[in-house]
């Protein structure tokens, strides 16, 4: 194999850069998937008061600021060793589940859904939100907009702002909600559940299409990895808090741990061709970008969360969960097809909507007791939530005055870097054989592979259009470029 050195300084900003190296027979030897990465976050944080972190870190990402806000608030709680009052915790969870409704709705209907609703063979120009509206009607588009609007309104009521909430602080929340605001959220919650039911029914109807069924069940993007995600005390899917459970490819429970112990379970493999490190399970070990029980690569996000839990935490979502496994894995072992992530995401949307309804109907939700004032000397703390794109961990160290001295972040997508790289490799292998390179559809197939993960590599609002810009270079065994495919 010829070693390829890629100078990261010359990488194309904002593009997913992919290098495909062929062997002597003209088959794929290796695929290298590079992505841009933001820099300097730790040095940016050091010297700041830890209580600033929830407001600061939600600026990291324009896509899921609520996830960073919650992880940071939880880490700050831990730094001060303070327990959030029940009402404060419920408000955080209420906000966070409303965010899940907006985020999952956007991903399904605007990003991944078009490939499914329009069909994978539809012209590229039609596989977007406008095509969806034309095909299924303006009413459906309106439902999506209304669901987003409802979620954003809940975030605004509880978080103080429609985007980039600012009310999470060490020990709880800065403000309670009024009875009028509670009643407004109640009405919005009903609409969210209706939207969740509609979306699951729509997905059911789509499964009748053989091409869609192939995406959801097919082998193209199947990887038999470990899975990881938060579960609650009843072993159900949870987004805000819980223990991290890990299962093996065959479904056997590998372990369960408190998120603060993540360094005992997870290591990161450095590869010379990419800035981003590959997380893997310490107890299994790094075997390269391969799946199977001997490889420590694990998958997070909707596919991972549903695979590790014994069910969903709410009734309608549980009903959908049972149908999902009855269809895709009747024996209850993990579902490995990445295309199933789209279905899993809608089941999670339903759980989030139902959770909003449950929480807002709790008599204590309007309690004024939403914050415990920290009294302990600050030291170190870990905050972990399930972001839509995977387990998100914030780890802060402070001096005795609560000033940040060190920061470590593991963002959701980072956990999935290994599986994503494997999906890109598999897509390349499916269209390159014995020196024959089927360029038609190669970019689409690669894009559909990693869209299921909804990767957020920039973890910011950086230069990435709705259609993922890509640069694919295919090289011969000596590293000479054979072909370059580019889409801006």
């Amino acid at each position: 194999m010829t070693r390829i050195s890629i100078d990261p300084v010359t990488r194309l900003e904002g593009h997913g850069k992919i290098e495909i190296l062929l062997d002597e027979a003209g088959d794929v030897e290796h695929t290298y998937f590079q992505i841009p990465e933001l820099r300097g976050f730790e040095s940016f944080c050091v010297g700041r008061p830890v209580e600033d972190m929830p407001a600061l870190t939600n600026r990291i990402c324009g896509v899921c600021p609520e996830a960073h806000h919650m992880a940071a608030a939880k880490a700050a709680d831990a730094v001060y060793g303070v327990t959030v009052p029940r009402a404060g915790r419920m408000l955080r969870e209420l906000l966070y589940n409303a965010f899940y409704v907006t985020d999952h709705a956007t991903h399904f209907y605007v990003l991944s859904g078009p490939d499914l609703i329009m069909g994978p063979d539809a012209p590229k120009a039609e596989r977007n939100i406008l095509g969806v509206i034309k095909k299924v009607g303006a009413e459906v588009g309106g439902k999506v907009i209304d669901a987003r609007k409802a979620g954003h309104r809940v975030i605004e009521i509880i978080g103080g702002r429609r985007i980039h909430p600012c009310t999470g602080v060490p020990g709880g929340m800065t403000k309670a909600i009024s009875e009028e605001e509670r009643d407004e959220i109640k009405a919005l919650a009903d609409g969210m559940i209706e939207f969740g039911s509609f979306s699951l029914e729509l997905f059911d109807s789509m499964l009748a299409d053989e091409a869609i069924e192939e995406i959801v069940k097919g082998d193209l993007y199947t990887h038999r990895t470990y899975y990881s995600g938060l579960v609650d005390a009843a072993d159900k899917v949870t987004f805000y808090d819980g223990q991290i459970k890990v299962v093996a490819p065959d479904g056997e429970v590998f372990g369960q741990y408190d998120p603060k112990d993540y360094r005992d379970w997870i290591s990161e493999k450095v590869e010379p061709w990419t800035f981003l490190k590959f997380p893997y399970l310490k107890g299994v070990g790094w075997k390269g970008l391969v799946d199977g029980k001997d490889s420590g690569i694990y998958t997070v996000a909707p596919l991972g969360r549903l695979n590790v839990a014994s069910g969903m935490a709410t009734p309608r979502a549980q009903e959908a969960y049972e149908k999902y496994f009855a269809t895709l894995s009747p024996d209850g072992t993990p579902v490995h097809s990445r295309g199933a992530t789209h279905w899993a995401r809608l089941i999670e949307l339903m759980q989030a909507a139902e959770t909003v309804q449950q929480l807002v109907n709790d008599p204590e939700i309007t309690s004024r007791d939403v914050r415990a004032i920290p009294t302990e000397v600050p030291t170190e703390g870990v905050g972990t939530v399930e972001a839509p794109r995977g387990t998100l961990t914030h780890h802060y160290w402070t001096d005795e005055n609560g000033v940040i001295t060190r920061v470590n972040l593991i963002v959701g997508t980072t956990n999935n870097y290994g599986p994503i790289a494997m999906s890109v490799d598999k897509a390349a292998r499916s269209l390159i054989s014995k020196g024959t390179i089927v360029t038609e559809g190669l970019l689409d197939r690669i894009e559909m592979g990693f869209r299921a993960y909804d990767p957020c590599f920039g973890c910011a609002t950086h230069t990435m259009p709705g259609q993922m810009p890509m640069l694919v270079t295919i090289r011969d065994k000596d590293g000479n470029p054979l072909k370059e495919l580019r889409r801006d």
Partner: protein
Amino acid sequence: MTDLVEPGTAYGLRIAEPGHTLVVGLGNPILGDDGVGWRVIDELDELEHDEASLQQACVGGVSLMELLVGYRHAIIVDAIIDPDAEPGSVWCRPLSAVETQDASHLDSTHDAPLPAAIEAGRALGAVLPSDIEVVGIVIERGDVFGEQLSDVVAAAVPVAAAAVVGALRGLRPSSPQGETVHA
């Protein structure tokens, strides 16, 4: 596209009274030069004017479209990555003439390109600006955390603010090819 819905129906998108102009500065204010759009809004806020609403935002795609609903005109101020242009250059051109992959925030990989989002919004009956101008400030990189702008980009802030004012007052109508205000 508006024939897809009944007149007066907008599926919850009508969030502002039409007839106003919105100037929205895009970017991430903690990502160095990437946040220059916010600084231009700060600069405009210092000026005496009643010609437009000002907003700072860190969104793209459908979320950006939702911000524009109800406005008759819009001006978007955004950081631009263009290896062929000098950092600190400022230009003004219609959205239709902008290579959106170069503009940092007009789109989102998790969402839809702004032009598609606008078409979708109109298909849903939303009132959206009939014309959208983009004031672009060329930056060299926007991937390093920091609250400070580079010197060359900071120097472009008043130039970009002047370009916005010019566009607002119709003093600097853009050509289809766009117009370089300062290089």
